[in-house]
């Protein structure tokens, strides 16, 4: 507390010695801020203007949209979200992204909370080595395991076909939902990171919750499960939210693994769809891409800005993720 109040006082004292110097310094700071804002925001402005510019081609874009006919302002949105759905099933992509991100998030949060509870509340042999192991495994980004993950999913599909022959009494086609080119396969692959840095993050938070709470509940005859589910789980909501939002945004934005696994355009997630939509011809459909990009980015950016303090807290303690 003392530190906080001391800061301005001290700086005022020093700065007051030279009013002109202070003014110059502040002006210089504002100049840098303006340059930084331009650097940060002109690509963002470019997305907006491209989305609204009815000519739609990359070659005709400018930073300020030239709109002669206001009724054509939403042409690009119409072109992607309404008119061309047979060729580019945009709403499928959005739906897929939400399904993948939601299911992955729920599973990640549950798995993480269960493991973290155990690490925090129980002492058992091998606990420290297991914690160390989780820390070590983090070193290997799962992108490096791409080949293996891809082949696992391929095997899942093949084993389903094989079982259909071996045990024809039951249809094994449901297994294919966890194979290549399916949302289940993507979710499965995302689970690779479930038991990771998040577990350590949550364990840290759980350690800060006094054990007396557990003990008094035990005296009252509660089982561990009841303590976890009815007492602890509500108490750790803040950290659950951080882990949840990070997991949701991370999986919603994930592109590399999803592109590798999902082949049919009906199965693409939003990021894969938008990428494939524009990658083949950058010029022709740029406006529609920008419209789609806005639809995809606005919710994520809003979520980020609303929860920036919590997210930053989580990021600084956890992994660096782009």
């Amino acid at each position, binding site marked *: 507390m003392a*530190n906080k109040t*001391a800061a301005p006082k*001290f700086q005022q004292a*020093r700065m007051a010695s030279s009013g002109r110097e202070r003014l110059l*310094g*502040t002006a210089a*700071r504002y100049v*840098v*801020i303006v340059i*930084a804002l331009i650097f*940060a*925001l002109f690509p*963002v402005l*470019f997305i907006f203007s491209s989305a609204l510019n009815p000519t739609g081609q990359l070659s005709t*874009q400018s930073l300020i949209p030239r709109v002669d006919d206001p009724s054509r302002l939403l042409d690009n949105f119409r072109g992607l979200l309404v008119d061309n759905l047979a060729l580019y099933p945009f709403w499928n992509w959005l739906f897929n992204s939400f399904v993948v991100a939601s299911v992955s998030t729920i599973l990640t949060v549950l798995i*993480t909370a*269960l*493991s973290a509870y*155990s690490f925090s*509340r129980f*002492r*058992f042999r091998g606990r420290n080595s*297991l914690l160390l192991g989780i820390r070590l495994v983090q070193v290997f980004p799962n992108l*490096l*395991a*791409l*080949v293996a*993950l891809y082949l*696992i999913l391929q*095997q899942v599909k093949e*084993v389903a076909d094989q*079982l259909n022959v*071996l045990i024809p009494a039951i249809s094994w086609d449901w297994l294919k939902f966890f194979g290549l080119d399916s949302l289940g396969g993507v979710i*499965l*692959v995302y689970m*690779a990171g*479930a*038991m990771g840095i998040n*577990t350590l993050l949550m364990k840290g938070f759980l350690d800060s919750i006094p054990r007396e709470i557990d003990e008094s509940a035990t005296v009252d*005859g509660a*089982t*561990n*499960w009841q303590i976890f589910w009815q007492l602890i789980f509500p108490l750790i909501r803040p950290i659950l939210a951080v882990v949840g939002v990070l997991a949701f945004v991370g999986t*919603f*934005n994930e*592109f590399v693994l999803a592109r590798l696994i999902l082949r049919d355009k009906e199965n693409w997630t939003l990021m894969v769809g*938008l*990428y494939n939509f*524009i990658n083949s011809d*950058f010029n022709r459909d740029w406006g529609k891409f*920008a419209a789609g*990009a806005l639809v995809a*980015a606005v919710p994520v*950016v809003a979520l*980020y*800005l609303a929860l920036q303090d919590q997210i*930053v807290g989580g990021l600084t303690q956890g*992994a*660096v993720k*782009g």
Partner: protein
Amino acid sequence: MAVNTKQKGVAPGGASLFSTIVTYGALALLNAVALTLIYGLLDMGNVPLAVVLGIIAFGATIIFFVPRFYPIRWMVPGLAFMILLVLYPIYFTVSNAFTNYGDGHLYAKQQSINLITARKYVPEEANVYRWEVMQADDGRYALYLTREVNGVLEAAFAPEGESIEPIAEPTEEAPETYNGFRLLTGADRTTALGVIQSAVFGLGDDTVGIRTRREAARPLKDRFIYDSVTDTITDQTDGRVYVANNEIGQFVPQDGQGDPLAPGFIVNVGLSNFTRFISDPGLRGPLVDIFVWTVVFSLFSVLSTFALGLMMALILNSPYIVGRKVIQSLLIIPYAIPAVISIMVWRALLNQNFGLVNKTLMDVGLIADGIPFLTDAAWAKFSILLVNLWLGYPYMMLICSGALQAIPSDVYEAAAVDGARPWQSFRSITLPLLLVTVGPLLIASFTYNFNNFLLIDALTQGNPPIPGSPVQASYTDILISYTYRLAFGNRGADYGYASAITLVIFALVALVTVFQTRFNNQWEKVSDNG
């Protein structure tokens, strides 16, 4: 200590019947599914994955039945995913790095032999039929065969994978439907032709295959016969013998003439994936370039984002700036936008012909022709660093401003009293104290960028390509994107070599992390003292 007696791992008393039933039901289901999958995988010859599933199912069962393992029960789902999706891939990568696994060598030897010996040929004395193609609802094809023997019409129906049956009352024209198969015409027929050219109809010895667009022939005979004693395959059409070469994983002609049989099989090649780039200068040159660029890229990315981020944090930390919170929110927008989208937008902005940056520069009159931001090697590297600066500095700004606020201000007061200039107090107070908190994150950021596949792949795809490289390699490739194209690129998959490079990356990243942990401890000591 009293706490621990309960938590030593005694099964919880008074667990409800319902939860017990749910738990054991789930366990039984897991085991049933796992056992079936193991059965299927073993049948396919995939022993390692079967073992992994066995470990997971067996481990989970033990953990739930032995009270001592009670605390582990809570982690079963997490551990299961970790074993399947993290540990197994690591094992898989390590074991592949020593094989020739890749296009042309995708199967184990027995599988490869099965594939070769499944091929048929049409013997000279075969009977010839006219044919029409039919298809069932489940996608299986069948042939409707007709021919005339001494002026008498004969017809037969030959489905895929079932025995051929003669038709009692033959008709010259194929029927519209037969046994649930319907006759294909027009575009459907054309599509089918592509698929059935190499298909085998019928079962066992009595099979039929298409010879020309008009004729089908039966019976087909096995073209290749494998002899397990001599480990050779003999071609029945010309009697040539192919000998298994277990060094390179192929059946090669005994007389040394002509091509080996395809597909080859997987064999252990020892360290050759690791030594390949030493012995092959065409491989070595690009790989060295790529490695150097990877390090330069990661280092410069960390330093540039940190420098800009710290500068902005310092500026925003000044008490005279109005609207701090709003400015900060605006500045982190680049970080919040999904990275793929940002990168694609930058690709558009930097486009040589249509990009806004080039258009603006040309309008102003600074340049006459568009700058090849993404197609010239040097410019592409510049663009990558620029875009990564844009993507990454908000994160650095956020963590720096958090760390700056944690530095106690009485330190500055003391320094000011001692007559320190602002630059001096920044260098000897702010920076060292900042590095205590931010240092580990800088190293994490280095390792992240070291494997920043997304940026490279979405912005330049590694382009422009390095000419003359025997495998796909490009000037802006970093190690991970180079590896990705080795495994999934359009010039064919080379999983063995890709795995070897992956292991090298593993080792490098692990080294950096060990380094980080050491410094972490040192920094923590420093901060404890402070």
